[in-house]
Every structure is written in structure tokens, then in C-alpha cells.
């Protein structure tokens, strides 16, 4: 059996999006619950990169926040290296896990305190977790961390506004590495960056993973980026996993019609002139998801069963997919 660092089992979280009490009383409407993540299970092996892909509102960022403990799940379990997070109640119990799990956000302009010097930003986790107490050693460690992300020790004396977007994301990475984590949750880490800078950051993430043996949960809407960075991929649609597979398998033989649609939206940069299915419709409102399979209004293969019965994730060859059409074997082969 492989060594699983992160295990997620039947995870769910709902947000109360009801109207205020008085409005509900006057209009006779009930409470409304937005199921942002619903019944999601997967695991990530140590040293691997697991990617979550989906469009806005699919719940991928909510899932990232659940994993790092920024939200509490309403159902299901998250365990990191065998420790069930739900069992840890006090801050003191959570602190060791928090040290081992760090997060990097999309917007490097919003995630760094503009009034702190870079040196203090990077040193903060060291001080919080009391990893080093001696200021000279903290200083040496910060220099080493800046070096790991290809910044100079002098950069530590500057403020975030003196850096470009790509350099700021390097500072975020240095800060994340400061607590010596094993597991990084990367929520769209390159989406705000220019492509030439994106390539620098993706290469850096790969180098760090190899050097430090890190495990990544990588969240992105960009399938081409995911193809490059990940070992396994989960595709999310309206809060649920619709497909789960090794990266090579997912891109070679996508099962779920939604995965196929996403692949067909990737611009054809090689200009092969490949014929693609036109995209139908838009992501529905997650407050009021469609019955049965949530993708059925946009699916060219939907039938009565899809409209009435919600499909579960089932094995299909080397992949898992939640689709009646896949299960019944009535999907055509995907051409690319």
C-alpha cells in the first residue's frame, strides 16, 4: 500500500445563504443551504501532486480551505498523516498539523502584509511556531529560504510593493516553506501571473518538490497547467467530484462528459484544427442545482435516468467517473 499523506472521506460543507429572518417570515420562504462541497473523497500519496480542476463555483477553493482548516466540514473526515483533524479541538492540538500544512493563494498582492518587510513576513511562521529562537539564526534561515526561491538576502529588507507579481509569489512560497511543511495547498498559484512568469513559478514548484519531498494539492482552472504539474487529477462540478484519474489517463481517455467538455475548451495552440464539440450552456446556480446528475442540462448524452438519479463515482478501467452513460457504456470514444 502506498503511503497516503492526505485522506479525505465523504467531505461536505454547506453555507447558509438564507434571506434574513424577517424577510423569510414575510415572504414565507425557508432557509437555503448552498452545498459548496458534497460527498468528496480522495487521497494524496506522499511526494505526489494531486490537482483539482473545475470552473468558478465548483467548490475547489472551498475544498482547499477545508484541507488547511480554515473551514470546519459539516460532514466527513480529513486526516493528515493518519491524524483526523476533527479530533483536534484546541489551538494547541492543531498547531503541529498547521505547521506541516501551508497554503499559497492566488493573489500575491493581497496575501502579503504591505507594511512588513519581506524578512519579517518570511520569519513570521518561524516565530509563531517557535522553530528558532535566536535572532541571528532566524536571520540566517530567512536568507536560506529567500535563496531557495531565487531571491537575494538584500530583498529581505524591502517591502512587498517593490516586487513584481512573480517575485511576490516567490515571497509567498518562501513564507510557506518557513515552517518546514510537508504538504502545500496551492490555490491557483499562477493564475494572476503572466505566462513567462508562470513558467518560472511552475518550474520552481517542481524543483522544490523534488528537493524537499513536498506533497501538493494544486488547484487550477487551467487544464494545460494541470497536465504539466500533476500526478493525479480530480475534476469537480457543482461541489462534487465527477472524475478521478491518473493525469496521463485523464488526458488520454477522459470519461465524464464534463471532463471532455473542459478539454474541448482548451484553445488549440498547436493549430491542429481538431474538431471539437461546441460548449452548451453555463454552470447553473449552485444554490439550486439540477436534479439527478448536476451536469445533465449541458450534457449531450443525458437521458431520463440522468435527470432523475444522481450517479456515484464508479471505477471504469483505470479511472473513477460519476456518469450513468459511462457505466452503461453508451459514450462514444473521445477523439483528440
Amino acid at each position: 500500500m502506498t503511503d497516503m499523506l492526505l485522506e479525505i472521506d465523504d467531505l461536505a460543507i454547506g453555507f447558509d445563504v438564507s434571506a434574513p429572518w424577517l424577510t423569510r417570515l414575510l415572504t414565507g420562504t425557508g432557509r437555503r443551504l448552498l452545498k459548496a462541497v458534497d460527498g468528496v473523497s480522495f487521497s494524496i500519496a506522499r511526494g505526489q501532486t494531486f490537482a483539482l480542476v473545475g470552473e468558478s463555483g465548483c467548490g475547489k477553493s472551498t475544498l482547499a480551505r477545508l484541507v488547511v482548516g480554515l473551514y470546519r466540514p459539516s460532514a466527513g473526515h480529513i486526516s493528515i498523516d493518519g491524524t483526523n483533524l476533527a479530533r483536534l479541538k484546541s489551538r494547541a492540538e492543531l498547531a503541529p498539523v498547521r505547521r506541516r500544512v501551508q497554503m499559497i493563494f492566488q493573489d500575491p498582492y493581497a496575501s502579503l502584509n504591505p507594511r512588513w518587510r519581506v524578512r519579517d513576513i518570511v520569519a513570521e511562521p518561524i516565530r509563531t511556531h517557535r522553530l528558532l529562537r535566536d535572532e541571528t539564526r532566524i536571520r540566517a534561515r530567512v536568507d536560506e529560504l529567500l535563496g531557495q526561491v531565487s531571491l537575494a538576502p538584500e530583498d529581505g529588507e524591502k517591502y512587498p510593493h517593490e516586487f513584481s507579481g512573480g517575485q511576490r509569489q516567490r515571497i509567498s512560497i518562501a513564507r510557506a516553506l518557513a515552517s518546514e511543511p510537508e504538504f502545500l495547498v496551492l490555490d491557483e498559484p499562477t493564475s494572476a501571473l503572466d505566462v513567462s512568469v508562470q513558467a518560472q513559478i511552475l518550474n520552481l514548484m517542481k524543483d522544490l518538490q523534488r528537493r524537499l519531498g513536498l506533497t501538493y494539492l494544486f488547484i487550477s482552472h487551467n487544464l494545460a497547467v494541470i497536465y504539466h504539474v500533476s500526478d493525479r487529477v480530480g475534476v469537480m462540478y457543482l461541489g462534487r467530484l465527477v472524475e478521478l484519474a491518473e493525469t496521463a489517463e485523464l488526458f488520454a481517455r477522459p470519461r465524464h462528459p464534463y471532463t471532455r467538455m473542459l478539454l474541448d475548451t482548451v484553445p488549440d495552440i498547436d493549430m491542429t484544427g481538431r474538431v471539437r464539440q461546441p460548449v452548451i450552456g453555463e454552470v447553473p446556480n449552485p444554490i439550486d442545482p439540477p436534479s439527478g446528475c448536476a451536469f445533465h442540462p449541458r450534457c449531450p448524452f443525458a437521458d431520463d435516468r440522468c435527470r432523475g438519479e444522481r450517479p456515484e463515482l464508479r471505477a471504469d478501467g483505470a479511472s473513477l467517473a460519476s456518469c450513468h452513460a459511462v457505466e452503461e457504456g453508451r459514450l462514444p470514444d473521445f477523439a483528440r
Partner: protein
Amino acid sequence: MTPPLLEISHLSVALPTRRGTFTALDDVSFAIEAGEVLGVVGESGAGKSITAAAIIGLLEPPLRQTGGEIRLEGERIDNLPNEALRRIRGKRIGAIFQDPLTSLNPLYTIGRQLIETIRTHLPLSERAARARAIELLQETGIPAASERIAAYPHQFSGGMRQRVVIALALAANPRLLVADEPTTALDVSTQAQIIALLKRLCRDHGTAIMLVTHDMGVIAETADRVAVMYAGRVVEIGPVRDVVKAPRHPYTIGLMGSIPAIGHPLGRLRQIDGAMPRLGAIPPGCAFNPRCTQVFDRCREARPDLLPSGATRSACWLEGKIADD
């Protein structure tokens, strides 16, 4: 010989600041033919949006044009008074911006906004304008257009709002559409739909499009020709297939190599070290020289102009060097 639909020659735009006047656009020249899609691609700070703003006469002060000309169907438009420019904008040049919400008035129904735009530019009665508005909404793929025309912008999704903005831009049947990052704020599946829509409209109406984007994939899908911008200059321009498949300028080569693509070999992506220079810190000679892997003395001294290079034109001294050797 008929002049091109749009011709920009030696356009320069400056940004005066307290620390001196910076060059935002430096001697930019290109043309767009009727019915053609010209992609303008570059990373943030390359000057692509400033070029678009200059064409539609909406340069945000303190930015100001310091040289060059912009001609629409042979007629110079960059020196026109505001009132005359306003008549051209909307009537002969339509504009689409990144965020559809900033282009729509939240207080009016989309029908009101469409009818007003149509009647500003075309001599139509209220009824005829309304019929045309519904027709435009249908054409841009809004379902149940005759009912949705009474809705307000907030009642539409992001993709549907961008369709409304496209309908507005097309209201007076302009010859040229300037689209600045029209799909950047949208989800990937919506982006694919909007790209398909723009392509179809361009084909059906013979409308030319200047498509400004940072996404080379969108350009490869849509454009006939592409201009690559870097630090306020066009560094390479040519037919899209040539630029995408066989780029000549070292910046374009680096840019293409840094784009992850499905099916390409895994492993490290080609990266361009460093970042685009800030305004006011643009190096002398070729602006790309500090990041270029093939830099030599001449690149640091003199600025290269666009030179013919295969099927494209590239602003790089390597072209001359190969010829000299």
C-alpha cells in the same frame, strides 16, 4: 489603391509623472484590413491596452499621444475634436472591454441601453430600434431575447453580460471592433463560447477585430495575423500560423515555450528569466536585451526596427546579423 481599414503609423504615447515623462508606446505601426482579425498579444505592461485605448480615443489622462497617426479608412482620427470622435466611436468602431459590468449601466434595462445606442447612431424609430435590439440579442446567443430585453444587467450571468456588451458594440454595424481582453474575466467554457461567437460575427458581417489578449491560445484560435508587443513596442508581427509555429523574435520564442500545452513533453517549461521592465526603467537598445539568451553588443546600443524575417517581421538584430554573416 484603397487604404487599409485601420492604419496606425509611428504611434507614441507618453506618461508624464513626477519623476519624469515615461514612454508607454514607442513608435507602434500596424494596419488592419477589412474583415481581418488582428491579435495583439503581450504580457502586462506591454502596452497592448494603451494601443487599444488610443485607437478608440479613450486614452486615460495623464497618458497622451506624443506622435504618430491613426487613420480609419484613410481619414485621420487621432486629432479629431471629442464630439467628432464620439460619433465615430460606436458608429464605425465598436469596443468591448474585459469586465462587462463596467460597460453596462446597472440602472437601465439592457433593452433601454441597446435602443438608446442604436438610435444614437442609426435613424430608426423606437419600434424599429427595439426590433433591431432583439435581433442583436438573438444573434449574440441570448435565449428568449424578446423577454430578456426587459431585464437588468445584474440578472445576467458573466457570459451573458459579455454577449450583451457584444450586441451593444455591434449595434451600429461598425467596420472595426476593438476587443480588449474580452474573455479574461470568464470561465473557460464561457470563453470558448464567446470566442466562437466573435469568429462567427466577424465572418457574417465582415467586421474586422483588433483582439487584445495576454492568451496566445485565444489568438491561435481566432486571429488571422498577430502582433506581439513588449515594453511599448511591436517586436514581431505576421500571419498567426507563422508566429505561433515558427516564431522569430527571441521574446516570442520564449513566450511560446513558456506556455504549458496538453500533449507537449513534460518536464521543465522553457522560462524567460526576469520580468518585463517597468515604465521608466526600459533599457537602452533592444528593451528585451537583459532577458535575451542571444544578446550581443549591438542589442545594448541600438534599438532594432521591424525587419522582414521569413513570413513575418521581427524587431531583432539577429535578423541583420544572419544577413551580414
